[in-house]
């Protein structure tokens, strides 16, 4: 049963195990620095489907099935799946997993969904309510552009702070027992908003949320950044990462520069792949954590990773109405 430590952190004494995980992506993700880490790369971003939305659902389903297979399980064995994505009403997820016949808890955490789903799967497994839970998320560049920005063939210019929505999905299977990395503690974040309105600069909008969650976690657990092999943010990109380091210094006098990494800066080659400030989208941290990070934890190359998924909670309507961008970050302490 989870034990509250400090104000916001929940320690999971049974240390739920991530017994299997999988990441799938498309051609651009396959060509990035983490290309070889993916379990499957779809050379065609349509995945053979008629619409971009169906393609995203196919990615999601593929990741879930592969993660379960890696855990040696079938969909019918899972007690619950926690999942979500960026599309309206989270159809990327629901249409993808509708045939899998699993109890489903739909989540919206924007790009923080991987950390939110892992956290909830961890808490529920630790409590004994679930024996096996799945945490998953997806995003697709084309379906996201269509919903949030301009049509694909529109001849516009992207600004240097813009990030590239990953065409990818990640899934992890969390069990009470087994072999694999552990979920040691989780922290459900608080919404932060420092007034950024530019939907083309989501890194800047999300950095304050990451800062607050990291600070809360370090304070609650009475630890310092040096005690982690990595403090991994979701998708702040180059602009947001720089702002996070500055905020941590200015607000709390804490320097995480030595251990900080960001999934948004790892997925693509920032200079060679024309992605401006880096990657974003639920699938970005979903894929990086469920492939590269899990493998390093399993191999013992990483021992303690504080994964802080970040999400910008705006909609196309709120942006048009001139609202600022509230953001969120959830922390999950992964250990080997």
């Amino acid at each position, binding site marked *: 049963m989870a034990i509250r430590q400090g104000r916001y952190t929940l320690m999971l004494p049974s240390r739920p195990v991530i017994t299997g995980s999988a990441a799938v992506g498309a051609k651009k993700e396959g060509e990035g620095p983490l290309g070889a880490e993916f379990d499957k790369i779809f050379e065609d971003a349509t995945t053979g489907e008629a619409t971009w939305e169906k393609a995203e659902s196919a990615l999601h389903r593929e990741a879930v099935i592969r993660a379960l297979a890696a855990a040696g399980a079938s969909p019918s064995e899972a007690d619950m799946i926690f999942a979500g994505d960026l599309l309206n009403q989270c159809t990327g997820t629901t249409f993808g997993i509708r045939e899998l016949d699993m109890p489903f808890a739909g989540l919206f955490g924007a790009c923080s969904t991987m950390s939110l789903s892992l956290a909830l799967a961890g808490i529920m497994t630790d409590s004994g309510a679930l024996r096996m839970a799945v945490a998953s998320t997806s995003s697709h560049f084309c379906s996201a552009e*269509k919903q949030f920005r301009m049509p694909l*063939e529109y*001849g516009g210019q992207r600004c*240097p702070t813009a990030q590239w929505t990953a065409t990818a999905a990640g899934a992890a299977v969390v069990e009470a027992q087994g072999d694999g990395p552990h979920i040691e503690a989780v922290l459900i974040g608080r919404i932060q908003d420092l007034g950024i309105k530019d939907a083309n600069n989501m890194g800047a909008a999300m950095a304050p949320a990451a800062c607050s969650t990291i600070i809360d976690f370090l304070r609650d657990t009475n630890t310092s950044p040096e005690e982690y092999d990595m403090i991994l943010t979701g998708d702040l990109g180059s602009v947001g990462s720089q*702002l996070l380091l500055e905020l941590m210094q200015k607000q709390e006098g804490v320097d995480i520069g030595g251990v900080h990494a960001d999934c948004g800066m790892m997925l693509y080659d920032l200079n060679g792949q024309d992605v401006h400030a880096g990657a974003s989208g639920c699938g970005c941290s979903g894929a990086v954590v469920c492939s590269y990070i899990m493998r390093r934890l399993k191999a013992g190359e990483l021992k303690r990773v504080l994964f802080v998924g970040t999400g910008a909670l705006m909609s196309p309507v709120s942006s048009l109405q001139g609202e600022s961008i509230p953001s969120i970050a959830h922390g999950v302490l992964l250990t080997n």
Partner: protein
Amino acid sequence: MSITDKEYDKMAKKAAPPSPKGLNMIKAFLVGGAICALGEGLYKLFERLGVNEDGVRALVPITLIVLTAILTAFGVFDKIAKHSGAGTIVPITGFANSVVAPAMEFQSEGRILGTGAEMFKIAGPVIVYGSSAAVVYGLIYWITQR
């Protein structure tokens, strides 16, 4: 110490890399100029083919629009426009692209509420405010020249 929205805004502006404005302007000027030169060339060509002046004035933009529509459909236009920015948006090519691109994108939502309704998503405001400006201009002209 907590940071105010104003202070953070300053930090965010400082952290944001600037657009390469000089280079963008040069590329926009060259591509925009090339499109205008192409228009001029078409004008001369149609004239030489014996089309009368009214015909030429209609045929030149039509040719540029069709050309843009084809380049958009083949996924080439956005690759050029990524570099040239206003150089391709400002001439009639930009207008044509902004109609064809959403028409293609929303095909999956059907011919009526997809392609039909979304086609003028970007170009619609140009038509609304363009015609409104024409009305205002017409009124001023009518009042002052009467």
